[in-house]
Each structure stands twice: as C-alpha cells, then as structure tokens.
C-alpha cells in the first residue's frame, strides 16, 4: 500500500496508471528494476498494476491431461504475483508443432510450449528454442538435473546442449482385461513374449474374442523393433535401419497375426480410436497405449466391470520400448524478463511435487528419482500397481530418433506397414526396402 501511495505522489499515475500490460509499463518496470526499487507497483487506488509479466504457454491434448496442465498453471499463478501464465490448448502434438512454427515465423510464439520429444531436434536446430544449459547451471541447486530419471534425458539434449526438461513423459505399456483372460483360462500375468501373445491370441479366438485391436502407430513399431534388438535408424541417423531383419520382424509378425484374424489392425485416421473402443467394449483383451492412459483406463475398467492389469510390452529377444510424451521448452526471441519468467515456470512445472501430481492424475511417468522414492508414490504404487509398470519398464527404454526428417520418415514407415497389413500376400521385406530407399534420400541430406 505504501509503495502505491508513493507512486501516486511521484506522479506515476499520470503516466501509467490504469493502462495495464502495455509496452510503456514494461519499459517502466525495467527502469524501476534498475533503480533497485520495489517491483510491486500500485495504481492510485492501491490496486496492484503492471508489475506482472504475462507469458503464454501452449499445450497439447484434452481430458485428464488438460486438467492436470491447467491445474498446475493455476497453482503456479497463485503461488506468486510476478508472473501470469496464460495456458492455451492447441490440439494434438502435430497441430501444436505446426502452430508453434507458424507463430514463431510470425513473431508471436508462446514463451513456453509442450514439445513432443522426437521433434526436439528439428525445433532446436532451426533456432526456435532457447538453450537452457545456462539457466540450469545457474540454478542447479533448484532444478537438480541429476534428479531426473537419466533415461528421460536422452531427448532433452540436442548436440550436447540442453533444450527441454521432461514434463509429461511416457512409455507404451500393455493394458489387459484380466477378467477376460481368466474366463478364457489364461494367466493374467502373461503374455510376456511375442510367442505367448500368439498363444494367448489363439485361445482368445476360440472364445470369440480378439486378442488385440491395434493401430499402425510408429511409436509401437519402434518398441517392437527394439524388442527384436534393432533400431529404426542407423546409429548416426543418416540412413534407415528398419529394412534390417529386426525392423522387418515386427511387420511380418503383425501381418501374419492379422491374416489369421488373431490381431485386428485397422488402418486410417480412426484406427487408434477403434482400438480403444474395442478394448473398452471388451471385444479385445489387450491394447497397447501410453502410460498416460492409466487413470482413464482404470475408470473405464471400473465402469464396465472388469479388472485392469498392465504389464510391459511383450518381449521378442528382449523387452524394449521408446520413451514418449513431451518436454517443456522455451522459445527463443524472448526478452530477458520473459526468459526468466519462462524458466521459473518450467522449473515449477517439473518439480518433484508437481511431477507426482501429474503422475497420479493422468498416469504419465513421475520424472524425478525423488518422486519415485517418495512415500506418497510408494503407497500409491502398492494400491495401484498399474501406475508402476511404465516406471519399471524404463530399464528397457530408449530415446526416440530426433533427425530433422524423422516426421516424414515416420509417415513412410507407417504407409509401408499399412500396405503390408492391407495386402496379406505382400512381402514385408520388399515393402520395407522400398520405404528405406525413399527414407535414405531424406536422411542423407
């Protein structure tokens, strides 16, 4: 109050009173900061004005994910009175990325945005992202980089520089209708391998059920390639590796099981939704899905009266999954104040306390070791072991490729695999060779 009165006496009201947020206030605030005077300013009636810096935060997805993100933003805004974060929904990751890019080109990018991990490379190399190494060094006591689960940091660095902090991170896991499995006389602990999955599928088929409805999702494909002991791209990222035996094995497996009617693999835009619906309606016993679906799936299982079990994706030579989800990044071209505000916001969103919150609300991984070791989560895991599957599976997790051309290569792989599924007599090796040839042209650039 006193500050406010002084401001009035000093005549500040005549210059800025009542005009919120504009450039003038911004400039005045900076001057004030240099003068070493209070950052809190008031208008003549004592109302706090202008001292707040407003930054935009763009995020992806709705439902529980959106609830958690909005809740955290509200908490952040309530926790202090210097920074106001305005959160805006932008659709799925693809929509979000396209909009951030366009907004950046137009000079109107959000200060902070979700970024799907595989796109970190292209965004960072295009100069759209603010490097965070300096901030993390300065605030290392607070941000504690080594507290993040090491397996989640692979996509945080591009060319050795830090660009993002793990936020809502995931691995794909296998959701199981344990009730259906028991009714078919199957052990709900399994299937642990591809062969067992096939055996389960035969038994389930006899009971008139589909083992699994599954979209051709490259994230799952990356997992199956890893399980076969391979990678989709070569070590240096300059060429395709999905035409290798390890890359073709999943395609052959899917094609064969789909042909025999053991797996249902719809193609097209609605395929993912169909897989979820089939599982929810108890037409299929399993679904692959991000751990982000644990809370939602538990609700579905409860509502439809069946028991939900979750486990690792089955192994071929070994277990293996890519990580997924998004990290929080800061765009470049911000003023110093905006950078500080954005950094403070990113640190808040990724703190131990908040990663526990988002994990329990949605199902995404807790990203910090201190979170996993906390009493709160230990108790939580005991009560709902489904939440712990992805955490344990991290032992077998790997980062996703981050090459600039990877989004387009993803499309090529997806098309190739869909071709093999649609035409059961097609030769998977030939189809993958053809796609690899196309992909190599892009990757070699």
């Amino acid at each position: 109050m006193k500050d406010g009165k002084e401001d009035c006496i000093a005549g500040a009201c005549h210059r800025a009173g009542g005009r919120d947020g504009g450039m003038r206030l911004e400039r005045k605030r900076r001057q004030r900061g240099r003068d070493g005077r209070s950052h809190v300013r008031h208008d003549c009636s004592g109302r706090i004005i202008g001292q707040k810096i407003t930054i935009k935060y763009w995020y992806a997805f709705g439902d529980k994910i959106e609830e958690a993100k909005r809740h955290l933003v509200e908490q952040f805004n309530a926790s202090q009175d210097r920074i106001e974060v305005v959160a805006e929904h932008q659709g799925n990751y693809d929509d979000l990325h396209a909009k951030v890019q366009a907004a950046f080109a137009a000079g109107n990018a959000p200060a902070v945005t979700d970024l799907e991990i595989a796109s970190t490379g292209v965004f960072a190399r295009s100069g759209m992202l603010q490097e965070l190494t300096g901030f993390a060094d300065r605030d290392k006591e607070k941000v504690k980089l080594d507290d993040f689960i090491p397996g989640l940091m692979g996509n945080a660095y591009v060319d050795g520089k830090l660009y993002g902090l793990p936020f809502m991170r995931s691995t794909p896991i296998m959701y199981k209708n344990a009730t259906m499995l028991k009714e078919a006389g199957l052990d709900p602990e399994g299937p642990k391998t591809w062969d067992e999955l096939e055996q389960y599928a035969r038994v389930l088929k006899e009971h008139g059920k589909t083992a699994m409805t599954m979209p051709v999702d490259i994230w799952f494909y990356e997992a199956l390639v890893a399980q076969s002991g391979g990678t989709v791209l070569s070590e240096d990222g300059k060429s395709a590796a999905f035409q290798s035996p390890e890359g073709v094995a999943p395609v052959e497996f899917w094609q064969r099981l789909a042909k025999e009617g053991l797996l249902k693999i719809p193609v097209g835009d609605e395929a993912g939704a169909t897989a979820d619906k089939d599982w929810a309606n108890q037409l299929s016993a399993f679904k692959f899905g991000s751990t982000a679906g644990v809370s939602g799936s538990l609700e579905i299982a409860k509502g439809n009266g069946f028991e939900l079990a979750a486990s690792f994706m089955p192994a071929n030579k070994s277990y293996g999954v890519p990580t997924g989800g998004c990290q929080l990044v800061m765009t470049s071209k911000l003023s110093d104040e905006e950078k500080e505000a954005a950094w403070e916001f990113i640190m808040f969103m990724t703190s131990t306390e908040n990663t526990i919150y988002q994990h329990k609300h949605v199902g995404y991984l807790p990203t910090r070791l201190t979170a996993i070791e906390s009493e709160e989560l230990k108790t939580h895991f005991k009560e709902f072991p489904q939440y712990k599957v992805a955490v344990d599976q991290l032992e077998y997790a790997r980062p996703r490729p981050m090459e600039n051309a990877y989004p387009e290569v993803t499309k090529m792989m997806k098309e190739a695999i869909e071709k093999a599924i649609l035409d059961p007599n097609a030769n998977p090796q030939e189809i993958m060779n053809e796609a690899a040839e196309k992909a190599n042209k892009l990757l070699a650039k």
Partner: protein
Amino acid sequence: MTIWHKLRPYGMVAPAIVIFTMFFLYPIFYMIYLSLFDWNFVSPTKTFVGLANFRDLLTDSDFMKVLSNTTMYTLLTVTLTTILALLLALWLNRKSLFHGFVQGAIFSPHIISLVSISLLWSWLMDPEYGLLNWIIGLFGFGPLQWLSHPGTSLVSLVIVAVWKGLGYNTLVFIAGLQSIPGDIYEAAALDESKPWTTFAKLTLPMLSPTIFFLVIINLIGSFQVFETIAIMTQGGPVNSTNTLVYYIYENGFRFFKIGYASAAGVILLVIVGALTIVYFRLLARRVHYR
C-alpha cells in the same frame, strides 16, 4: 482539369489495389520466390537450390499419386454434384410446401461448417460402429471400410463433398430455371414438343451459363479440397486421399519443408490457372448467352 481530377480515380481504386497487392500478389510472388529455396520457415539461413524442388516434386511417386488423387476427386465431385443438382432442381422447380421443405433440407449442409460435417461423417462412416454400415447391412450388403481402406476412402470423401455442395448447386440451378422466360415454353408447347426435346433443345441451352458457372466454381473448389481430408483421413490410408492442398500443408507444416511446399503451391497455381483459362475458352464457345 485540376490535378485532383486526374488523380481522383487512382485515389478511389487505391484501397482495392493495396489490398489486392498485399494479400494476393505479394503472397504469390513470395511463394514463387520461396519455391527456389530449401528452407524451414524459421531457420535464419535459406539455401538457394534453383529448380531442385520442382525436379524432386516431378520425380516423386507420392506427388504423382497426389496429383492423380486430386484429379480423380475433382472429376467425380464436379460430375456428380452437377448432374444430381440439375436433376433435383428440375424436380424441385415448383411451388409447394413439400418441395420447399426438401429444398431447405438439402440446402442446410451448405451452411454447416465443414469441420462439423467432417466429424459427423467420420462417425457415420466408422467401419465398426457407424450408422452407414448398419443401414447397408439392413439391405444385406457387407460392411464397407469407407475411409479406412485405400479402395473406398477417396470415394467416401467425394460423397461428403457432394452432400455438402448439392444444396447450393440446386439452388443456383433453380434460380437459373426460373429465369428462363415462360413464353419460350408456351411456344414449345404450341409446337407439341416432347418433354425430352424441350429439355434437351430448350432448357439445357438456356441453362448453359448456369452450368458453366457451377462447373467452374466446383472445379476450382474441389481442386483445393483440404478440411475434410485434414480431419477425416490425414491423407491416408497409404496416401490414398492425399490431395494437392493437403500435401502442401503436410510438407510445409508437418515436415517443415517450406521451399518444397511452395513449389507444390506453384504447381497448384499453374494447374488451376490453366484449367480456368482452358474451360473459359472451350466452354465459352458452347455457352448460350442471352
């Protein structure tokens, strides 16, 4: 004659010229300029590559597929819409409560946002849970995969486009029919002209400006189809519904290849421009203008 009088016309057209230049000419020339570069829209460096983008496009089998998809989609949509709308207009061209109701009903899709329509039809065409498969099931036909199979996906999109465009086209046709003077029909009746002869020798020629107008705007509209594809198929499955504008969007905003996307944009510009000129030339000779 003062200077003011000389300058006034220019002053009057200036706003239109400025807007035309800013939002039409400038983007076109900027696109042509960008098509010569390898750039991702945001990186500080643009690499000049000459005509390499065009060479890559024309040797890319995906792009050829995209062109043939677009052509097929356009031909089917324009033909079906025009024929169905003409038939409906002939039937609806009379005054009764029922005909008015039908006309209103088929016009209503025109005022609904394409996004809503796309979502609605995605649901209708769902292979598992969709209403359409249930209906054709009642008549003993097997379930169709609609949007989820390369064989039916493009036709499914054509159905949506025809359904959406039918009402507007019918309305324009009815207006065209009603503007044909009644005395010509009286004369035809006096000559005991058969209905088919009246239609072929009288109605159709009198309607040809309307047909011409609709074909042109449908053609240009169909060539630029985007929303239904972005929402219903994303160009899939296996590129079977990827059309020119979606391809441009995909390359520009999903794969961040602005130069390549601009090159495809230049090709779209050339095609639509050429089609317009050809159709104006060809059809203008046959069109009967009063």
